[in-house]
């Protein structure tokens, strides 16, 4: 098991002062803070100024058939998508996880490309695989799936074997290419 990273209590206190009480929890030494979608950009921008200068990853979890509601906080139970922003500080090596929950039919969060350039492709990947829109993203195209693809394959209602999109891919013959 990895050693416990240093505590991030002072940052959490500053967060609470600025944005009111945000539900947070600790698991295996990792602090997670749940941020409402409307405040996500402000909170992330605030954290960046407080030293969390490295955006490690943006990913997402689809809670469609999760057996228990997202454990961290009962208040967020019932949401479908939980975005994960993994932040780190290159100076103090602290880590912080920010969770933002969004829902159908139009899951949207504000893009953080203006804060971290790393977010560009990470957000494109989340859009591609989960269909979550990032408002204000400069170039929100699919990243790994082909442009013609219509579904978002990492959603839980998308089957492992696909829905046959592959058979509809256009075939380019030699003299057409």
């Amino acid at each position, binding site marked *: *098991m*990895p*050693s416990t*990273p240093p505590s991030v209590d002072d940052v959490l206190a500053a967060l609470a002062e600025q944005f009111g009480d945000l539900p947070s929890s600790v*698991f*295996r030494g*990792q602090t*997670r803070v749940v941020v409402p979608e409307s405040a996500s950009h402000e909170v992330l921008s605030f954290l960046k100024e407080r030293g969390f*200068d*490295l*955006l*490690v*990853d943006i*990913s*997402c*979890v*689809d809670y469609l058939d*999760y*057996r*228990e509601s997202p*454990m961290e906080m009962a208040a967020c139970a019932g949401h479908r998508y939980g975005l*994960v922003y*993994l932040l780190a500080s*290159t100076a103090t*090596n602290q*880590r912080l*996880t920010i969770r933002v929950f969004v829902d159908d039919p139009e899951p949207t969060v504000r893009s953080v490309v203006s804060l*971290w*350039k*790393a977010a*560009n*492709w*990470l957000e494109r*990947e989340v859009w591609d*695989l989960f269909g979550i829109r990032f408002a204000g993203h*400069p*170039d929100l*195209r*699919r*990243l*790994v*799936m*082909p*442009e*013609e693809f219509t579904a978002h*394959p*990492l959603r839980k209602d998308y089957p*492992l074997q696909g829905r046959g999109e592959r058979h509809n891919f*256009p075939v*380019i013959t030699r003299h*057409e290419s």
Partner: protein
Amino acid sequence: MSIAPPRFESVEIPEAATRSEDYLWTLNFGPQHPATHTTLRLVLKLEGERVVDALPEMGYLHSGFEKIGEHLTYNQYVTVTDRMNYISPMANNVAWHHAVETLLGIELTPRCKVIRTIIAELARISDHLLCNGAVGLDTGAFTFFLYAFYQREVIYDIFETLCGARFTNSYTRVGGLSQDMTPLVIEKIRSFVKTFPKTIDDMERLLTRNRIFVDRTKGVGVLSTEEAISRGATGPVARASGVTRDLRRDEPYLAYADYDFQICCASAGDCYARYLVRMQEMRESLKIVAQALENIPEGPINVGIDQRTALPTKQQVYSTIEGTISHFELSMSNRGFEVPCEESYAAIEAPNGELGFYLAGDGNETAYRARCRPPSVLHYALFPHLIRGHTLSDVVAVLGSLNIIAAELDR
């Protein structure tokens, strides 16, 4: 067939009939090209030989590894991680099971920790050998590449003796390893530790002060410290730009806290600095291997029966009731081991950068979500920034120095 036209960030396209952009030449580089080494595609906008802009495309090797991760058990998925960064599969195995063990809260045995450290460092050496070798190859130093590849073969031999597989090792298990290290393996690693410094010396003599190589890499693809952090670079790419971040020191996992080694950094941030950092890191890795190899603790490689994740030994199965129960429960498809309904992230310093897995467990023996944080994606996104203004021949130098592995990139 309609393919969406590529959009370039920096070029404004007016509606007028004649655009200055029309005089640029568009070149498709890849997805099948010897110098991309794997299937990735670049659309380059050239003005003469100078690259005005580049548009990296990926996804040609997308195989849905993260989706598969939701359908394979924690032990089965290790075979898929082999195929992510296939240049150093051992490091991926270690990363995956490090993440699983963090989620489960398992403390490994001291012997397992040390063995994992050794193989992770050998994997780093073999990855850096290939990366630097390929940079040499792409910039015209073929002999150098062969020196590097010969040593990779030696490491493959060590892995083959260790676990029976040369390439896709699948060596780790939840809470342990598939096999213990035998005296023969230790002997092979020991002789590698003895002979390898001579090869590094030879390699450095061949290339480090080679005029052609230095001219082609120095000042090419410069990444500043601020850009490296903002763009999420990790590993040797970030360290070559002056970001002193190495998870082996900053968040010591496995047995790294016990060893004496240096974090290799450079400040120039160009292709040459990345080459130098990788060269020096191989020496440091060798130091770690040498220290670890002479002090492997005795004892079991797997966690005990109490944790109920790794299979018990045959002796325990046949002579104790706990061993029998544990063996049956772990082998039955409807039992397996207990996973908390929780989420955690754990990363290791892989040869390429921070390789982490964000796991969501739902009590099942398969992960609810197995997100891989691949360093290659963020490094590939750096590419247009690094290549703008350089010549076409620098494309391969920059691409090689970022060490992009398409299988890890696309997953």
